[in-house]
């Protein structure tokens, strides 16, 4: 007896717990239908289940409109919930659009929308949209939320896709690397070498022809004997001038070269006049 009496409070608790869990929102008779303008033959109609989503996705074409009619129930009795929403979620980005039902006090609610009511981001989604039904209200009844079907939005293939311009958000930008202009290129080296050799070949040709015509350095000893300083200075100044031109080409600046050229030129002028008068003397002597 005492055992039975001690059982009673726990039985009561159990009963209370069961009663608590039983109060929840649900729906009776949810009918989903897709109708197109003037396309009543191809209309789609089905019943939504409160524990499993529809097996096949519901297709919504560009001229179609989707309608859901249901009766919301709290604890089995038809009642108007405060919140009766259909959530459509883009599986790629997680963006969700919501369509509230217009519900009467009897608990009968209806929602309908077409493609033009959907935001642009959901229209261009690559996967079907996941539709969740929410029925909830104030109070202690457990709210209802379930994935009821998938919506495949088929935009009009002829109409251009709605342009979604991504708004400016701060973040990393694309790398940019400047593309440099190509360096100027010379022609093939082999062609250059051919012409270098052709040019260099003129030197032996020139010296050879001069030798054939009788060129010689016979008067060198006579000239050096007659005017050694003048001839040596003159010829050195000729060579030095070429040397100055070479240095100017290599790394001298103009104002480094000009004084040197001036000095060498003066030396060449003064020694040259003496050297050339020695040559004149040989010419007057009939040796030239």
């Amino acid at each position: 007896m005492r055992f039975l009496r001690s059982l009673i409070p726990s039985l009561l608790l159990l009963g209370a717990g069961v009663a608590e869990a039983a109060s929840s929102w649900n729906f009776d008779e949810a009918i989903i239908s897709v109708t197109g303008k003037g396309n009543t033959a191809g209309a789609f109609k089905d019943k939504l289940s409160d524990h499993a989503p529809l097996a096949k996705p519901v297709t919504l074409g560009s001229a179609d409109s989707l309608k859901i009619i249901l009766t919301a129930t709290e604890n089995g009795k038809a009642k108007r919930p405060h919140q009766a929403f259909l959530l459509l979620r883009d599986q790629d980005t997680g963006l969700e659009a919501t369509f509230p039902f217009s519900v009467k006090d009897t608990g009968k609610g209806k929602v309908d929308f077409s493609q033009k009511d959907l935001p642009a981001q959901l229209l261009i989604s690559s996967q079907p949209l996941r539709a969740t039904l929410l029925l909830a209200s104030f109070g202690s009844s457990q709210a209802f939320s379930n994935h009821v079907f998938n919506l495949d939005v088929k935009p009009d293939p002829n109409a251009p896709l709605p342009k979604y311009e991504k708004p400016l958000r701060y973040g990393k930008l694309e790398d940019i690397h400047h593309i440099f202009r190509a360096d100027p290129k010379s022609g093939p080296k082999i062609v250059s070498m051919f012409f270098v050799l052709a040019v260099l070949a003129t030197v032996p040709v020139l010296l050879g022809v001069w030798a054939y015509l009788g060129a010689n350095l016979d008067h060198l000893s006579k000239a050096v004997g007659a005017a050694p300083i003048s001839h040596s200075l003159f010829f050195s100044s000729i060579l030095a001038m070429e040397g100055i031109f070479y240095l100017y080409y290599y790394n001298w600046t103009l104002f480094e070269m000009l004084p040197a050229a001036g000095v060498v030129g003066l030396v060449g002028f003064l020694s040259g006049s003496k050297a050339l008068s020695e040559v004149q003397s040989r010419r007057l002597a009939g040796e030239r």
Partner: protein
Amino acid sequence: MRWLLSFLLLGLLSVVHAVSSSGNKLLVVLEELADKAKYSKYLADLESRGFKTTIESPKAEKIALFELGERAYDHLLLLPAKSKGLGPNLTPKLLLDFINAGGNILLTLDSTHPTPSALVSLLLELDIHLPTDRNALVVDHFNFDTLSAAEKHDVVLVPRPDALRPDVKNFFKGDGKGGEVIAFPRGVGQTLGNTSPLLTPILRAPRTAYSYNPKDDVDGVEDPFAVGTQLSLITTMQARNSARFTVIGAAEMLEDAWFDAKVKRSVGMGGVGSDAKQVKTSNQAFVKEVTGWTFNEIGVLKVGKIEHYLNEVGVKSNVTNPKIYRVKNDVTYNIELSEWSWDHWEAFTPPTGDVVQLEFSMLSPFHRLPLKVASTTKTSTTYTTSFKLPDQHGIFNFKVNYKRPFFSNVEEKNTVTVRHFAHDEWPRSWVISGAWPWIAGIGVTVTGWVAFVALWLWSKPVPLKLTTSGRKIQ
């Protein structure tokens, strides 16, 4: 004597404790000074972090945001007021001037106190939209506190927010372990305009939440102001001068009662969490982070030294930050960045996936290069990159333009001239293979000339005897 020393040390320690990087003068606008007791823990937290708080009613005459043209306070905290306006010293224009002068504002709203229309239009100017119904509040039948709001469902429980994007640092995740709960009691949800990059939500409402007007939508809501994650519960706006403006939708979450309240989650979507346990809210820690961000205690970046120099052929030049470079020079750029974290400067690392970029631009960037870490010290990190200047002459800028959500803006511009090649910087002719025939020609000419001079001076003429057919006779 020792007690005097320890006293001094204690005094110094309290000064060194967490402090804002931009000043500590805080003005708290609270209409009923009797309400001070409701926020005592929050205000004590602020004082302990080094803020010098002044608590005034909006109707007080001596309340003034500006004094002689300068900001009199560094930060402003606006708690909800019952009256229709905030008075002549806190007009929307003065609040905007305060932001433009670099001051930070933390605005709290309450669904039981209708927001003054001046504030509604101020928020609209920042592209933050409030419900048109003055009494609208956010409810959620799937995420409410069963202990305090079992019937009305107006205390929304949200977890700590995730990072806004994978490449944005999350300053509001607490210790990141999860399982924390933040209570949002009887708050006003906001929606944000899509075009502004300056707006960032800290805390968004759960998917199943919605905003409704308890006076009009008693039986059912058919055209809610906003629903789900489109509702922002805590919104931030960081102006281009890095001044911060935060809107907390529920002033009640700052109250002592909610700082360590015990809550129990309701059954969520799909029936999850039917066996939830009682937990303590993390409001105190979360509000500290939100306030810390708003009042420049976290998320503040500073630029230290910027150096750029010529670095040709691996030889670092001694001249730093020259005013002029040449086309196609190899240049290295270094910038030193620090981040303020509650009470000290520390080395700054951008979040994974994000990178600080250098732009070398004239009117548009010629180069946009990622900066790599060169060295780190305790208080800063030096970022570097080396690159070749474009083959375009002109006036260029080294631009580091690092603007990210929740970080203060870093915009550094150094202008340099890029000149042409000088006449003696071009490749020399002997390097150009096409010039070799011409150089050979010059050499041949010189040789011929010298030989001619020698022959002319010293050659003995030889009479040329020819046969009748023109051949030479030796």
